[in-house]
């Protein structure tokens, strides 16, 4: 047992050294320098607590599916996860109920509407997808548990498996969300009216606000992405965060609906599953290879981090990450992470 844990320490040390030595470190620094000067976008203000974010805050992290990590800038600054939580809660709902039951409550169609639109599918009364607020509230409603506390603990435990540490909810953000979440209340009641969610509306809304107020940093987002890139197993802890069979469901939704009403263009131009949040975070997944986490609070008019989109776009173009051309466009990312050491 001691031998085994020593082995783990040694592996972690070796990984740290390999990433510290990789040329990719310089690439991330270059991207950080290049985009730190971009002054476009505005910090979200619809919740008072979000308006306090520092617009200059900017961090980029990449974690590979085999556990090498790269950080630059404000990679350890905590912020509220907001909508980045949605695909992960969708994954938990899939585990709790199976694919068909979840799909009976929420669709998988992109909307082209804003993330907070009050709109349901007219034929089925389902929210269009789990990435818009309506669909996210419906998936949060599906989190199993004996009572609110139990559901809350299961939610945090799920996030904890992805990031590899205990996750906490920021009380100020939660209170702020709860005090101003009238639109989300309206959406929830509309869905209750159609019988799409259960009648514990207040509890589910509280849980949804708590979910959005969980604190992460961009290193956490990169590990979450890397966990999905690694078939659902956290590459740093070795712990499984989601059943392997649901990983592709989560990633498909992220690719088609993850970046709000920019999702179609994102899929076209950048082409990797991703999810943004109004806290300034973006998680992106390069299946089989790595997870990317970016933090920068100023948002474009669609609610996506301006610098986050630019960083993902440049990484995708530079390394040919678009999943429909992966492996045959541009220099391979792995060549820069492990130069000339890949045998053959």
């Amino acid at each position, binding site marked *: 047992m001691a031998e085994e844990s020593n082995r783990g320490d*040694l592996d972690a*040390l*070796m990984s*740290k*050294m*390999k*990433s*510290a*030595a*990789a040329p990719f*470190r*310089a690439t991330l*620094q270059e991207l950080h320098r290049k985009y730190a000067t971009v002054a476009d976008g505005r910090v979200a203000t619809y919740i008072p607590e979000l308006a306090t974010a520092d617009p200059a805050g900017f961090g980029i992290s990449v974690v590979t599916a085999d556990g090498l990590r790269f950080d630059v800038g404000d990679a350890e600054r905590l912020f509220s996860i907001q909508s980045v939580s949605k695909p992960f809660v969708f994954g938990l709902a899939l585990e709790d109920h199976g694919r068909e039951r979840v799909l009976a409550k929420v669709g998988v169609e992109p909307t082209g509407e804003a993330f907070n639109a009050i709109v349901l599918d007219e034929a089925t009364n389902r929210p269009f997808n789990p990435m818009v607020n309506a669909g996210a509230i419906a998936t949060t409603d599906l989190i199993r548990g004996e009572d609110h506390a139990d559901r809350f603990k299961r939610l945090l435990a799920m996030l904890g498996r992805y990031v590899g540490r205990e996750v906490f909810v920021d009380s100020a953000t939660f209170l702020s969300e709860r005090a101003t979440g009238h639109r989300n209340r309206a959406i929830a009641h509309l869905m209750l009216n159609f019988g799409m969610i259960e009648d514990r509306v207040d509890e589910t809304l509280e849980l949804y606000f708590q979910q959005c107020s969980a604190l992460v940093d961009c290193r956490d987002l990169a590990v979450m992405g890397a966990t999905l890139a690694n078939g659902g197993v956290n590459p740093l802890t070795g712990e499984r965060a989601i059943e392997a069979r649901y990983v592709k469901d989560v990633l498909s939704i992220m690719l088609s609906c993850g970046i709000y009403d920019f999702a179609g263009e994102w899929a076209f131009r950048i082409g990797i599953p991703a999810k943004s949040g109004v806290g300034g975070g973006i998680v992106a997944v390069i299946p089989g290879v790595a997870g990317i986490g970016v933090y920068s609070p100023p948002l474009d008019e669609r609610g996506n981090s301006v610098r986050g989109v630019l960083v993902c776009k440049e990484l995708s173009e530079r390394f040919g990450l678009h999943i429909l051309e992966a492996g045959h466009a541009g220099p391979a990312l792995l060549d820069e992470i*492990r130069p000339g*050491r890949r045998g053959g």
Partner: protein
Amino acid sequence: MAKIVSVHSFRGGTGKSNTTANLATLIARAGKRVGVIDTDIHSPGIHVVFGLREEAMEFTLNDFLWGRCRIEQAAHDVTPPAGPGEGPSEAPGAVLLIPSSARAGEIARVLSEGYDVGLLTDGFRALIRELGLDYLFIDTHPGVNEETLLSIALSDTLLLIMRPDSQDFQGTAVTVELARRLEVDDLRVLVNKVPPGMDVELLRGQVEAGFKAPVIGMLPLDHDIARLGSAGVFAARYPGHPLTQGLRQVASRLLS
């Protein structure tokens, strides 16, 4: 394309710093621009061999790690002058040393605060670029620590120096295992301080079989270099000495 050569011993006293200084000097004599960086932050010393005094150092590696200067500003030209019997050295060879600070306060700060070890990667690459180096020698801390592991991970060639001693054998095995895990391609062993009367071919066979790595040279335990006591670069001081011949062979193997 510059070559990074990390020089490491698991234990102290193998002659690591002296050997590094001599090899760097001999390679510079062959017309190469050679950087030498002392990453032995906790017990720096190679600057003494090059005769660089503490007062003459404007900036050190420590200043770079704390963001007080660019790494190339900490480089000092320590190219030893040609010794007696040596012709004028072929320009444009040079030895550029980046020392670590030997001030107690600076060493204590590294111990208490630590630093992002990845900064060394940035520093090495900047040095090679800014100083136009052909070779960068990294004089590492004995044993295993983060600077050492990073230097090993970054190196094109890892040169392990050991004495024919059971403790050195055991320690070198640890470094070899770590180097293999860090995927170092080119790993070579230099057996130093071989006492007279030892069966060198038997020893070579033991080392090569034990570590599955080639022996780049076997240098004798020598009184003259001991007498010099790190107060100069031996190969520059005694270019015709048999030990210098041995060092020159090792240098030419590194060059080829």
